[in-house]
């Protein structure tokens, strides 16, 4: 299961970065996390779950300079 989640996450994040879309509106391209730290792709989220979820800003991480 974990590998499947990470593979899907990898595909979604890289695709959004190529589109330069850090905060996609389309559910299937949104990445969210629940309070336990579980990653959920937006199209798998039920409407009643949404208030507890936090959206991941998908811009690339930067390299630390310090």
């Amino acid at each position, binding site marked *: 299961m*974990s*590998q499947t*989640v*990470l593979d899907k*996450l*990898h595909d979604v*994040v890289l695709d959004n970065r190529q589109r330069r879309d850090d905060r996609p509106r389309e559910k299937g391209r949104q*990445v*969210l*996390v629940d*309070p*336990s*730290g579980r*990653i959920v792709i937006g199209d798998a989220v039920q409407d009643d779950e949404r*208030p*507890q*979820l*936090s*959206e*991941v*800003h998908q*811009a*690339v*991480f*930067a*390299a*630390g*300079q*310090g």
Partner: protein
Amino acid sequence: MRDVLSTVVQAFGSASARTLRDRASAEIHMPAATRCLVVDSVRGWLYPLCSEPGDHYLLFAYFDGSAYQVKVVSPALEDHVDAHACHLFSDGRICFGQSDAGGMPTLTSAYAKSVLWVNGYSVYLRTSMFAF
């Protein structure tokens, strides 16, 4: 004098409002085991995470005056780890890349992106490639 008092009251009010807002955000969005702590006069939120591959992390999120930072408390970063490749500052903070200071605009957004980071780091430990 009135200007100074006004500035102090404004700053105190702003800090109090931020603390209340962050407390509410932490209760709704962050792990149940999240604790509010003051470390070296800095108030922050200590929370555990487990990545998809099963690695356990302890992180500390705090507001530095301009943005929310997240520091990796544990595990200790291994000597062979390339901090640059793993998007880390030398003091163990995650470099989110949203600004020059590397922070995020809200506690919730910092928490969410830290989840992405722990998963990227767990992949890095297994493949030497940061996944995200």
